[in-house]
């Protein structure tokens, strides 16, 4: 349970990061929080010859907001995102997800970008990114490109990132500020903080009449990678999110579900529970928004 030997570099500038990656080719790995990479190295599932530590690259940490997006830089710690006022205000779904990511000790070290780049389909950050349709900025020595999360996480543990690319930031569209916006994440997990069997997220915005004018949903654990159920969002648009409307609409995901059985839960269980869990998240978010309306 000890990692194999490797070389270690600690660049302070993004240009150095990408030139190290270009130089080392397939043998290099970026380390940010290391909360997934280090266990994989200890178990020798990966054996990089070079670790490029990006924790000292100031351009890769922090959260900023401009008119049309909230930019979370890749090496921002999950705990810092959870404490951020900007995130709480305009990316409430991410704020709601943070307490579900691993444990206190791992959130203090683990990063938002690391979670996305790792591509673990059970990661809450990926669920939120899918639901909110984030844009990812990637950088290599050859240049920059931006990829929508839908085209980024293509299969479990598989992203379209090239070996020489570094994830720079995830850009979120801010939630509307003229609505009562609330967000809820619900999970089925064997223990708090463990890999979830199923997780769902809902961010809703109600107008003063209680009508739903903003809805973003995510479902994870019932398809190879998390997905955003547009059909449910469309079905519930401009509704009052009444219980029966919600309970009908969530079953629109049934034909899309494609779960696998594993040691944690059967495919049949995942198929049966996913719609109800999504419904619960929507109703809980609605109830909280309604409370804040009166």
């Amino acid at each position, binding site marked *: 349970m000890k990692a194999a030997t490797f070389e270690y570099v600690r660049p302070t500038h993004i240009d150095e990061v990408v030139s190290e990656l270009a130089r080392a080719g397939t043998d290099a790995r970026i*380390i940010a929080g290391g909360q997934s990479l280090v*266990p994989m190295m200890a178990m020798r599932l990966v054996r990089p010859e070079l670790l490029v530590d990006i924790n000292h690259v100031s351009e890769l940490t922090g959260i900023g907001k401009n008119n049309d997006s909230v930019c979370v830089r890749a090496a921002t710690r999950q705990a810092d995102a959870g404490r951020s006022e900007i995130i709480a205000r305009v990316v409430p779904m991410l704020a709601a997800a943070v307490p579900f990511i691993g444990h206190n*000790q791992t959130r*203090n070290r683990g990063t938002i970008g690391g979670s996305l780049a790792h591509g673990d389909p059970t990661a809450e950050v990926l669920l939120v990114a899918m639901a909110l349709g984030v844009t990812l900025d990637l950088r290599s020595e050859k240049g920059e490109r931006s990829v929508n999360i839908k085209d980024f996480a293509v299969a479990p543990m598989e992203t379209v990132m090239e070996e020489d690319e570094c994830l720079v930031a995830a850009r979120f569209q801010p939630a509307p500020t003229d609505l009562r916006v609330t967000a809820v994440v619900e999970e089925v997990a064997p223990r708090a*903080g463990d890999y979830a069997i199923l997780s769902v997220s809902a961010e809703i915005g109600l107008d003063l009449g209680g009508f739903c004018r903003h809805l973003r949903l995510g479902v994870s654990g019932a398809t190879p990678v998390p997905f955003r159920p547009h059909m449910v969002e469309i079905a519930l648009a401009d509704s009052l999110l009444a219980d029966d409307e919600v309970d009908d609409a969530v079953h629109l995901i049934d034909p899309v579900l494609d779960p696998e059985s594993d040691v944690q839960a059967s495919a049949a269980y995942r198929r049966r529970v996913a719609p109800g869990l999504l419904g619960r998240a929507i109703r809980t978010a609605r109830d909280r928004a309604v409370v804040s309306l009166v």
Partner: protein
Amino acid sequence: MKRAVTLTINGEAISSEIEPRTTLVDFLREDVMLTGTHVGCEHGVCGACSVLLDGTPIRSCLLFAIQAEGHEVTTVEGLVEEDGSLGLLQDSFWETHAMQCGYCTPGMLIAAYGLLAESADPTEAEIREAISGNLCRCTGYVQIVDAVRLAAARMRQQ
């Protein structure tokens, strides 16, 4: 190839030469001979190896020692009073019998310390959340929760 590393451990500047693949917990236990920090799973599951990095709890089996360059590490040995007697939090664990075999205890102390640094009067749910990343195979956690609550009460009185 060995590389130089300099960091602060329990207030003391330490310089050493290490292989980059040495984890912080192995460095602490085998090079600095601070064996209070325990190592259980070596892959981030059990929490036994928790230490404070710049004041926040992390898992020292998931950090290479070389990454701690320039940082401040506090281990369970750093929680004692200046005269070497048990610190308030440690004494609260003693008082409530919050350990049996003691394997998890250093990690529990660090997790609890991190919580109390942020919250003077945590609820039971908050205490349980704070130690949720630390496994204990003996106590059933009840006395550990009691210990943290006792320590919080004592700290508020100070």
